[in-house]
């Protein structure tokens, strides 16, 4: 009797355990907004799909092709990445997800000058937006990661952030029957691996495309959608006086280069050496990758240090004089486009008006109400539409 019951009991308990695969967990087989299914992968269809760019550089003017996008992931991989992104199971304490610092409601940033780390301490750089991140060749403010896969090992395994270990991360996913099942759906029944986690997160992040702003309508011939002050702001932006477009070059609004522009650190903080800390090259001291300005309205505070609270303060930096915020005794090889443009107050207002035309969240992914771990998904409260 006893002997016969045991397996049965185990089976019953197994059923009751929350780890059991839940029938409701199925990955979407439909590509996300903006993406078409082709040969089993998802490919972007946008205003810019039909345009070329000089030397395929993805920089130019209004009607220029975007830089190459990481695309071709399957709908299932993208959908799995979406669940992982919001699931605090990925952190060692089970309380932090990617979305803790990259919150959809804040343009996939956290609204902080320095993100809050694992034990509540402020980190010294601000979380960048993830909109259009799949178009970037190099990641982080100092360009130290060459792919999304490489980048995410930063937050996942850094003691300051999610503080996981590769082994622990893999185990927590394997121990979860829902994930076991979902990874199978996304990766042809192959055994669950960390590489799949990275692929899925990269796939999801690359689907965060924002190319349908009012600016984009203007660029594609719908001149009436911008107001006169916004058009004037655009002209200041691309003028050779303000020179914003020389670095924040359309259509991505970044030329993806490193520039030393000499922005100030928060009161009392030491100069962030930026790229120099990675390469050891003194001429790159204070160098940062030019950030995109798409959805910039949503991602205050600004600059690597989050030093500026408003867009108005941020754009005023550029007319403060070449090197005005460089600490005494520091020598920075400032970029030649940082000069003395003598922009008027009115022009600064126009610039801000223009920057706000770059807002577009129409491809906001569906924010999950629950995640496979059964933990509470992070920062999914606000839906924009």
């Amino acid at each position, binding site marked *: 009797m006893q002997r016969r019951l045991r397996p049965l009991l185990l089976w019953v308990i197994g059923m009751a355990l929350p780890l059991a695969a839940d029938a409701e967990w199925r990955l979407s087989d*439909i590509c996300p*907004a903006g993406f078409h299914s082709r040969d089993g992968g998802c490919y972007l269809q946008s205003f810019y799909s039909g345009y*070329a*760019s000089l030397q395929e*550089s993805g920089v*130019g003017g209004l009607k220029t092709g975007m830089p190459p996008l990481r695309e071709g992931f399957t709908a299932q991989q993208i959908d799995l990445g979406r669940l992982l992104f919001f699931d605090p199971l990925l952190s060692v304490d089970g309380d932090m997800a990617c979305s803790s610092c990259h919150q959809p409601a804040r343009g996939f940033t956290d609204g902080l000058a320095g993100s809050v780390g694992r034990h509540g301490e402020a980190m010294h750089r601000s979380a960048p937006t993830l909109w259009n991140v799949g178009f970037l060749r190099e990641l982080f403010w100092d360009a130290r990661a060459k792919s999304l896969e490489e980048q995410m090992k930063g937050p996942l395994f850094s003691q300051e952030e999610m503080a996981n270990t590769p082994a622990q991360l893999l185990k927590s996913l394997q121990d979860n029957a829902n994930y076991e099942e979902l990874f199978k759906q996304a990766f042809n029944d192959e055994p669950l691996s960390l590489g799949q986690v990275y692929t899925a997160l990269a796939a999801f992040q690359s689907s965060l495309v924002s190319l349908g702003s009012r600016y984009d309508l203007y660029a594609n011939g719908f001149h009436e959608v911008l107001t006169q002050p916004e058009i004037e702001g655009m002209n200041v932006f691309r003028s050779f006086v303000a020179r914003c477009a020389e670095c924040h070059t359309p259509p991505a609004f970044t030329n993806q280069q490193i520039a030393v522009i000499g922005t100030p650190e928060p009161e009392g903080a030491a100069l962030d050496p930026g790229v120099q800390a990675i390469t050891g090259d003194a001429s790159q001291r204070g160098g940062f990758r030019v950030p995109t300005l798409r959805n910039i309205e949503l991602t205050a505070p600004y600059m690597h240090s989050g030093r500026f609270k408003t867009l108005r303060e941020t754009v005023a930096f550029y007319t403060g004089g*070449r090197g005005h915020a460089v600490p005494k005794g520091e020598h920075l090889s400032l970029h*030649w486009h940082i000069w003395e443009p003598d922009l008027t107050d009115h022009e600064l207002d126009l610039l801000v008006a223009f920057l706000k035309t770059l807002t577009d969240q129409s491809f906001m992914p569906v924010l999950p109400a629950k995640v496979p771990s059964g933990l509470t998904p992070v920062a999914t409260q606000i839906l924009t*539409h």
Partner: protein
Amino acid sequence: MTKIIPLGLLWLSLLVAAPSLMAAEISVKDGESIQGAVNKAETGDVILVYPGTYKESVYVDKDGITIRGVVQDGEWPVMEGEGKRNDAILYSGNDFTVEWLTITHYKGNAIMGQAGNNFVIRYNRVIDTGVYGIFPQFGKNGLIEYNVLSGIEDAAIYVGMCDNVDVRHNEVFDNVAGIEIENTRHALVENNYAHDNTAGLLVFITPGLPIKTTFDVILRNNFVVNNNTANFGAPGSIVSKVPAGIGIVVMAADDVVVEGNIVSGNKTAGIVVTDLAFITDISSDPESEPNPDRMVFLDNLMFDNGADPVADVKALMLTQFSRSGPDILANLGSAQEPDNCIINRERYTSFGVKKWSECERKDTADITTMRIPGGAPNEVVTTENRTKLLYQGICAGCHAYNMRMIGPPTLTVQALYRNDPQGIADYIAAPHKVRTDYPAMPPQGHLSPDLRREVAEFMLNVTK
């Protein structure tokens, strides 16, 4: 699906190829606004600007527009920046032509392109504008000819990050840099007169730009004379670091032919070939290849160069027991290597060309232009095809013809709204939830009622 754009554009390019069918002339008289005319203009139109003073900045974000000054009895149309306006002409459209204008006193550039293929910039006079005179950027296939430019604190003509450009018959003087070819491929600089600048002709790679190379450049039959003006470039600018008295500078560029030029009276040196170390205190860029490779120096007439060289060059020349500067100075490392070549080297005072080989080719007579026969292919947007572009750019991201995407198939929508485009136009302004198994559709309220109606009609007529 993506194929639809090129097809639609192909159809358009047929229209554009015969602009005379639809081209209109729009006149602008003194007291009127050039921008006003641009706003009215359509692809193929010519805007005629009559003599007068035009105090405005003009931007052209349409394809196939020509702005043509009308010069009458020596009176020119003048664009006047009064030292406070940014740029005189800013274009992004393809097939843009600007000619017969006098442009003066702008803070930024006189004529600036940002993308825009097949540009033509000619017969303009540019006097004392701020940074650059003529500056096409990110353009493919262009012509810059018969312009006269002076008093510019950076480059008078600056071809930056372009492909396939001819620069010819221009006069540039009293500028910091005369003509600059930078991070550009396939350029012909011919029959120009560059005098009394800080430096006459410059062929450069600037590090830190998104397009990294300069190669296949011909400098031919130019007068490059007396470029000795003290450098008045803005502090921090790249040209502010160029020493005065240089005829031609080639920095880090590859495959540069120098032929048939008259280079004289430049007090530091006639021609300098150098690597990126020439420009100091600039953030380094590992992706910019620093060495000048494969120079081809054919016959040139050079004399009286280097009469009073800057200190560095004087010191260098003293190592050759010469107190005056050189016609040719191949400065540093790879500039002196045998992948470079020269003919009749004995005619010139030179430094650093000892190892250069003898050129096989003796002239470039076979090359008459660097432009692309028939022009660069363009994606032309006109008022006729923009609704299609809107549908492709926005709606088709979520609606496929007969397949479920994020949104329901277009066929389904067509069945629902058969004769009711206004119904669609109203729905998309503020979509409500219809289907439980679909996400909500994002509102398109930023589109005007007219645009929503246009795109709705388009959606009802989509057939594949």
